[in-house]
């Protein structure tokens, strides 16, 4: 290991023609050329790793950006929205004092590879997004989709996913107040695990991610950094790239909910004591994303000493440290005079906190490793100026046939025994049967504010014990509708979630979504995506509530076959007094039944 020379900026300037594995890292020829142009030289290994991560579909939204704009353009004016798309999570004002922040995110692929850890770290990740806004997370929800219920792989994946969602959320002490479980063969090789979290914050407690104030200290807090989730970047160690080195680089992350719980308590103490200037969670793109986004959004720079990062394995190289997806870490920007207080709070909770650098006014993120400069980049080129594609769209060729195959052509039951059979079949079908095998594995009582949870249509949580103020949330999608008509299907998902919230007596106020689709490079998938986004944006315009944030998950497919378009929509509602909520089910004998609508 020790004979590996670090690819420094100096080295990159001296060896301009060295071949670099940018294709293996998922960068296109023209993208690589643009990086060389931005830097005026070839990127170092570390820089190449950073660009490949930040310009990936997952981080740059390069295929979806042009469509997602509609959410902003069509959004009705809302004076409740304190932060919207572009932040870690949208923030909605509830009254003069209280705001909430909420978001839904996917962790699909990892949950197929290692169901328990994949699902667990999915919950951990969305909770950190909420935490980064300045909020105390107070609930989770999960929307799950699997292949056929009787398929052996479903029997492997489903129990692990449910145990993972429960294991992490229960251990964090967050009540699970609702979600979905669906089965369809299209998810056989690609189950969907979407997790939502919501947090509460004081209106004046909103945290910013900007790395403002040259001279301020950059502090990394939480778990040690290991070789988690850097499978892709491992090609950079090409000199030593063999089976063994690949083995060292797990692409699965293992979660530590206990560490996250300590991180939550420490963060909330830091926020309350007003000890920090900026905060960013470390998610999929690890330090790379946290450093460049905080600097870019402030228009500042940073000098980072990478060897100060606490490592789980001493032999890690700079590009590995920068790409690591180790969980349970947060980045803070701290004024020098407050550093001791920050480190003191971390120590109280038994969490490692390490100053790793300073904010500068250079407009460059410079990263050294034992004195050698390994990164020197303008942060905006990574965080904001990634590639943007208007990909070709084409209506799927089979859509006409699918749409022609209408329910009217199905045989109708003519006898009562046939009706009975149909009813029994429905009751027993995995998509309609009782969900308590799943929901019983989730703690819905912790924190003592859960007013409604399973089997209700939406979850309701009290925010204020004195006034009874609370929020209602529902997470819905019917992907079979979306397959038949992604525009109407997305609208229906929105309408369902909206109705589920409204029937409890809550006023729907905001939307989050998780858009699960196949490959954006397939024009028919891209068409489905564009239609679904248009549907949600139009629906929100008609209903008068904004989309405040969400997540796009592409490449959900097995071989050439994509999953059904699955735009999962979450609607947030407000209840002035949760004691007035209307649960489902009949309350008293003698009550009158009324059917509204056609």
């Amino acid at each position, binding site marked *: 290991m020790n004979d590996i020379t670090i690819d420094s900026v100096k080295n990159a300037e001296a060896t301009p023609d060295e071949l670099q594995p940018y294709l293996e890292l998922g960068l296109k020829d023209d993208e690589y050329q643009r990086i060389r142009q931005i830097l005026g030289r070839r990127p170092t290994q570390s820089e190449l790793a950073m660009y490949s991560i930040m310009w990936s579909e997952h981080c740059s939204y390069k295929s979806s950006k042009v469509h997602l704009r509609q959410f902003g353009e069509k959004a009705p004016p809302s004076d409740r929205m304190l932060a919207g798309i572009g932040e870690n999570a949208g923030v909605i004002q509830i009254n003069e004092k209280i705001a909430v922040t909420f978001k839904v995110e996917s962790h699909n692929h990892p949950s197929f590879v290692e169901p328990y850890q994949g699902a667990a770290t999915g919950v951990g990740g969305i909770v950190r997004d909420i935490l980064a806004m300045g909020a105390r997370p107070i609930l989770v929800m999960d929307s799950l989709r699997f292949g056929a219920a009787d398929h052996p792989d479903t029997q492997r994946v489903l129990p692990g996913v449910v*145990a993972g969602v*429960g*294991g992490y959320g*229960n*251990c*964090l*002490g967050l009540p699970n107040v609702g979600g979905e479980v669906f089965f369809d063969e299209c998810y056989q090789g690609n189950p969907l695990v979407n997790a939502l979290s919501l947090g509460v914050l004081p209106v004046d407690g909103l945290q910013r991610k900007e790395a403002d104030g040259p001279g301020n200290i950059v502090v990394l807090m939480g778990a040690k950094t290991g070789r988690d989730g850097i499978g892709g970047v491992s090609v950079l160690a090409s000199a030593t790239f063999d089976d063994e080195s690949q083995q060292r680089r797990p692409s699965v992350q293992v979660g*530590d*909910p*206990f*560490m996250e*719980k*300590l991180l939550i308590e420490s963060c909330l103490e830091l926020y309350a004591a007003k000890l920090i200037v900026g905060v960013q969670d470390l998610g999929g793109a690890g330090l790379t994303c946290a450093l460049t986004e905080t600097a870019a959004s402030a228009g500042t720079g940073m000098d980072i000493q990478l060897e100060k990062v606490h490592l789980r394995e001493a032999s890690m190289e700079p590009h590995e440290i920068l790409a690591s997806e180790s969980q349970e870490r947060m980045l803070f920007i701290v004024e020098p005079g407050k550093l001791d207080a920050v480190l003191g709070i971390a120590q109280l*909770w*038994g969490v490692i906190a390490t100053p790793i650098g300073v904010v500068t006014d250079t407009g460059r993120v410079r990263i050294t490793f034992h004195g050698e400069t390994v990164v020197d980049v303008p942060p905006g080129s990574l965080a904001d100026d990634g590639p943007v594609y208007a990909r070709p769209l084409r209506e799927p060729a089979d859509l006409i046939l699918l749409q022609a195959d209408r329910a009217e052509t199905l045989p109708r039951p003519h006898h009562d025994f046939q009706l009975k059979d149909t009813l029994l079949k429905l009751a027993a079908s995995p998509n309609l049967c009782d969900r*308590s095998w799943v*929901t*019983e*594995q*989730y*703690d*819905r*009582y*912790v*924190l*003592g*504010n*859960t*007013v409604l949870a399973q089997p209700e249509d939406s979850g309701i949580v*009290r925010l204020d*014990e004195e006034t*009874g103020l609370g929020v209602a949330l529902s997470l819905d999608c019917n992907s079979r509708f979306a397959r038949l008509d992604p525009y109407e299907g997305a609208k229906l998902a929105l309408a369902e979630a909206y109705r589920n919230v409204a029937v409890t007596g809550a006023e729907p106020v905001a939307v989050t979504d998780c858009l699960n689709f196949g490959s954006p490079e397939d024009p028919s998938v891209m068409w489905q995506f564009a239609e679904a986004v248009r549907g949600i944006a139009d629906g929100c315009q008609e209903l008068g509530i904004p989309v405040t944030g969400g997540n796009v998950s592409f490449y959900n497919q097995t071989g050439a076959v994509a999953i059904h378009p699955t735009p999962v929509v979450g609607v947030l509602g407000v209840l002035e007094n*949760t*004691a007035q909520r209307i649960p489902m089910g009949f309350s008293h004998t003698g009550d009158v039944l009324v059917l509204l609508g056609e």
Partner: protein
Amino acid sequence: MSKIGVVTFPGSLDDGDAARAARISGAEVVRLWHADPDLHGVDAVVLPGGFSYGDYLRCGAIARFAPVMETIADAARGGMPVLGICNGFQILCEAHLLPGALTRNQHLHFRNRDQWLRVENSSTAWTNHFTEGQEILIPVKNGEGCYVADRRTLDELEAGGQIVARYIRGNPNGSSRDIAAIRNEAGNVLGIMPHPEHAVEALTGPSLDGLGFFSSVLKHLADAKAAA
């Protein structure tokens, strides 16, 4: 006003709920911190539910060594009422303040449901407001709530009236002899797997039956003060 202390370990989760329940019952609540051995003059202590230290090794195994636990163990031996709920029950067993152990649920899953219990013994500091045989509805939620002990211990518990509550209409975790709660010989230390603190408000719980545990200890403390 009697003071009830609620301990927070790193990883405690239901500490706020236990405090709320004690407050609703009319107690003055004092929050205790795992690293501080001082009990700050409390009259009784609640060890709340949660995953202390992540519960990674065995539930309660690490919490048992917290500085506050030494003081609590001494106080408990001296007669102070101590209630361990869920993780708190596990800690009391690990600390040998109660016999037996809590192991992985037999079906291997975490289970959260509203659970009926029968109160079997109302002579403890924490159950004197119930009548023996009373059926109560309290949420249960645990992954390792299966109570085990050797047969002799179980027989002794049985004979000595130390089984304080049993699961009825279904055993949620495979617990021996349907045990949901036990007490020490003196009756001041109670371990219970279900969560009384989640059944104290009509809006958020399945019943108000949980309040009985807290009003019991307040009565116990008031009686003790009157007798002194």
